């Protein structure tokens, strides 16, 4: 038995010593909790960083499963960028399992991009779980608002500069170039959706409120009875009636949600259910931040026409 233990220890130690460690010196290894932040971190970090996301765009970020493969990514990370506001609270379990002191809460390598974000849907009354999966700190899906990208990228820039101050000029130039491009796109998107200002929408889950508010649209109802709680038949009937009464044209649904139900409901109510890019990579063609927002604007403008 003792021989087996010694052999296993020697094997692991040897493998650890032989493991490739050189790339760490070349690039800053950044891990993000959600793919939106990966795209934004790549935009700011440029060639200096190597970015990986713990989740994919097709997933529901509230309920990501903590896998050891997450811990492997975090073990090697120099920086962890999290969304915050309880969207990705599960990351703490993965960080503890990763044994990486550089990215624990409070460490210089931990970036929470919710800092400085004017949050929407902050409950003004006492919350409990009878209200469903409410977020006591506010709606955490702010990354879908392109107008908040300057604040998010500023947090990312601050974090990257903290760890690699020698690259400050490059990071700032990258961010500036990205925001200049985004500025042009935002003007175009605003123009595209301007004719539909004030249009009412139904959403399946309140993921899109920041996007809706940014472009002057109105969230009239949610298909879910309460956030995260599947709708009851009575609630579905109420929503159908509301869609008909208020002549609402569109239901927005996430690719991970009950798309079939959304389509059936839309059919009954005479509306159109469209699968929105709830994150970068959530739908085909939404491979980066600008592409994801562009997809949403184009699809919505088409549906509202």
């Amino acid at each position, binding site marked *: *038995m003792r021989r087996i*233990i010694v052999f296993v*220890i020697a094997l*692991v*130690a040897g*493998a*650890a010593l032989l*493991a*490739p*460690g050189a790339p760490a010196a070349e690039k800053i290894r950044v891990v993000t909790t959600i793919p939106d932040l990966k795209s934004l971190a790549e935009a700011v970090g440029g060639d200096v960083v190597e970015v990986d996301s713990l989740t*994919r765009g097709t*997933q529901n970020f509230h*309920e990501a*499963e*903590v*896998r*050891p*493969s997450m*811990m*492997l990514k975090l*073990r*090697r990370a120099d920086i962890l960028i999290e969304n915050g506001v309880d969207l990705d*609270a*599960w990351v*703490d379990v993965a960080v503890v*399992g*990763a*044994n990486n*002191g550089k990215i624990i*809460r*409070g*460490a*210089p390598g931990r970036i929470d991009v919710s*800092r400085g974000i*004017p*949050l*929407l*849907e902050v*409950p*003004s009354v006492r919350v409990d*779980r009878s209200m469903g*999966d409410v977020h006591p700190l506010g*709606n955490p899906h702010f990354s879908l608002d*392109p*107008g908040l*990208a*300057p*604040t998010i990228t*500023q*947090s990312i820039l*601050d974090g990257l500069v903290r760890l690699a101050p020698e690259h400050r000029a490059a990071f700032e130039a990258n*961010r*500036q170039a990205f925001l200049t491009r*985004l500025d042009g796109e*935002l*003007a175009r998107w605003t123009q595209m959706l301007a004719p539909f200002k004030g249009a009412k929408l139904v959403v399946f889950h309140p993921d899109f409120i920041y996007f809706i508010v940014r472009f*002057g649209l109105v969230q009239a109802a949610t298909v879910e009875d309460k956030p*995260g*709680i599947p709708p009851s038949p009575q609630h579905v009937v109420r929503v159908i009636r509301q869609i008909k009464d208020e002549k609402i044209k569109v239901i927005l649904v996430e690719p*991970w949600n009950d798309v079939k139900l959304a389509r059936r409901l839309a059919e009954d109510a005479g509306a159109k259910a469209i699968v929105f890019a709830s994150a970068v990579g959530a739908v085909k063609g939404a491979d980066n931040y600008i592409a994801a927002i562009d997809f949403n604007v184009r699809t919505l403008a088409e549906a509202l026409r």
Partner: protein
Amino acid sequence: MRPSPRVGFVAGLVLAMSCTAPAAAQDAEALRRELEQMRKQMQETQAQYERSIEALSERLRKLEAQPPAVATPPAPAAPVVVQAPAPAEPPPSAPSAMDLLRRREPFALYGARGPGQFLFDMGVAGDFVANFVKRSAERTESGTFAGRENRFFPREIELNLFGQVDPYARAEVRIEAGEEAPREELTVRLAEAHLTLLTMPWGTQLKLGQVRNRFGLLNQLHEHDLPQTDRPNVLRAFFGEEGLVEKGGELTWVPPLPFYLEALVGVFNGDNDVAFGNGRIRNPLVTARLRTFFELGDTGGLQLGASLATGLTADEHRSTIVGVDAKYKYRPDGWLHPLLTVAGEALWSRRTVAIASDDPDVVAAEQTRHRFGWYAYAELQPFRRWAGGVRYDWTEYPLDPGREWAVEPYLTFMPSDFLRFRIGYKHTDRSRPLLTDAGLAPRTMDEVFLQGSFILGAHPAHPF
């Protein structure tokens, strides 16, 4: 008559005053004007403030008259403007050896907290079980929940407190209450209390305190988190109903490899009297575990592990348990839950026992017993709220001759992530009747379990 010096002084003073009087009058006039000007300014400022306060009060009145709003007012659409947000707080630096030696002020943050803020998370989990068995099994107390057959009882009500102690450590305390015998007061006990040092060098982490040992898949799970109502018979036979819960410390290491590997070594008292029982750190229970994980595409994941626990029994004989485990999950892309989970563990026990002789002059002989047991389960969850599965387990008794197998199909309904109901049926078949404290138990046994579990407040996310 010569004037006295005093009269001269007074006359001089009067003369001087009369000369300076016009200048003083001019100064006083200037001061008066200045004061008048300041008074006017003050009055204007006061009027301005009063107007502002009135406007704010009016706004507040209007806002209070409105129904409570959930959302903050929408931000107007505006082009992207590059602007720096509020200045960043200075980042906490990584602790150096000197930092760790320096005196800390753990209560500084506590002193600065707002009302009602605990600075840690708190949750309560409740787990209630009803166990139905035949009268013969109840009489001999040979059911899965010995002594609580044909009863509805709180198996585990758990208060869970967890959070960061400071930038370098986390702590978790779990206090449990549960029924251990019918018609008796609930037993309250410390289930776990441990501190984890997070900033150890070379990718290591140290956990100190009372822990549910990381041995295999299920030992570290609390009762309400188990995939079935009860622990598999093999774990109950090898470690007892509670599983392996020990006091000591364990060091984990995640080496910088291209694949995930977690190595763990622990030193504990060895208080578990089913498997060990020596209870002395001088002859400690030593545990070790290796765990690895493979992503099988975007939808599958396979975890493999090997565990070891070796220590001394109460009569100072060596007891060693080795286990291997595997868990596979298939989660179709975009699903909120796995469709299929398959998992299992196999355990080997090697234990030296003393065979006492009837003759007091004969020295007790020693014998080494090799025992084996395993379990496996498969669970299907085609709908978010419904899951069903079956578990099979087979085990030899660690000390006595004989073996048993059991099969347990079950169905789980989860109205939400914090509420769960489960029904299960378990058939146990023993190679010989089992002798319990209450008598000779039947060779076969059929049980029905009903279980209800809930979680109030915070609950840490579960790993794979």
